[in-house]
């Protein structure tokens, strides 16, 4: 498939599916009863999905030379504690980046 066509297919299909997800309960199922099991399972979607999404960005892939880099793990833990107590994205970002930069400077590495 041609690269440009593939990119625009992704834009159109993912854009549409994301919009359907966003619209789902606001407009489409607004008057429908949701099965209790689905309601229960839905509660755990953000925690499971966001963790699955974020963890590889921090630890990398097992077997890689740079697997589980200590500075990123420590910085992520600091950011997690700040996020838990402040609920503030800007403070979380600041705490995480400053910790990472400090550790990288101390250890003389980028990674």
């Amino acid at each position, binding site marked *: 498939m041609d690269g440009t066509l593939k990119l625009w297919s992704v*834009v159109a299909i993912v*854009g549409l*599916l*994301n919009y359907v997800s966003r619209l789902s309960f606001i407009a489409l199922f607004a008057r429908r009863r949701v099965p209790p099991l689905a309601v229960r399972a839905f509660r*755990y979607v953000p*925690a499971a999905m966001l*963790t699955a*999404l*974020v963890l590889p960005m921090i630890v990398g892939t097992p077997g890689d030379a740079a697997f589980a880099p200590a500075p990123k793990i420590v910085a992520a833990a600091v950011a997690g504690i700040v996020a838990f107590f402040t609920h503030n994205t*800007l403070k979380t970002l600041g705490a995480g980046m400053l910790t990472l930069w400090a550790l990288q400077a101390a250890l003389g590495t980028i990674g």
Partner: protein
Amino acid sequence: MRRIASDPDFREGFAEMVPACVAMAPFGLVCGVGAAAAGASVWGAIGLSAIVFSGAAQILAVQLLAAGAPLAVIVATCFVAGLRFVIYSAAMAPYLRPLPARWQQGLAFLLTDQAFAAAVRRFDAGADPHAGGRHFLGGGFALWLFWQATNVAGYFLGNVIPASWSLDFAVPLCFIALVAPHFRTSPTIAAAVVAGIAVVALSGLPMRLNLIAAGVIGIVAGTLADFTRERWTAR
């Protein structure tokens, strides 16, 4: 258009979202850099950020495009990563029910992690639905506008940003800011821990399929932990 732009609730929503927009700027830059690295044209990059309007889906899409993954895999992965919008939609639905269908359809497009968090705070503080809707529109529009600006900036600045800044790390930090405050109940922690172990353990799967698998396994784990907790507290 001018009438809504001078509306006090709209303006308040816009202004209150500016700190979150600033916090999302590095993430937007990384998305723009990724689109350029995947070989997208500037219009392709803008299409992705303006229409998909989800950092997680955009990052996954450009990584999988760059890796030459089939269209079906890219679409499935981005869809699963965007399933959390269904939850946000369900949570927003009662607040938006009094609004006209057009407003519901428009606001749904602007439903993102940050807009959702801000809207729930506002509505829980007892805002009138119509004022709350205009407030949501202001905040959602601010995010959309800043998101396009930072994505385009990232597209063109990709080679200028030094690697030593580790700008990429801003992406997981934005998600940590979203997910860490959830870790207050044992089923939620179970869902996250199991999903985290699964995503690393299954990283041998091709084309990031470990993300979908780990997400599903984590959701099942959270639900089972929820049933178990209920049985314990019922005793």
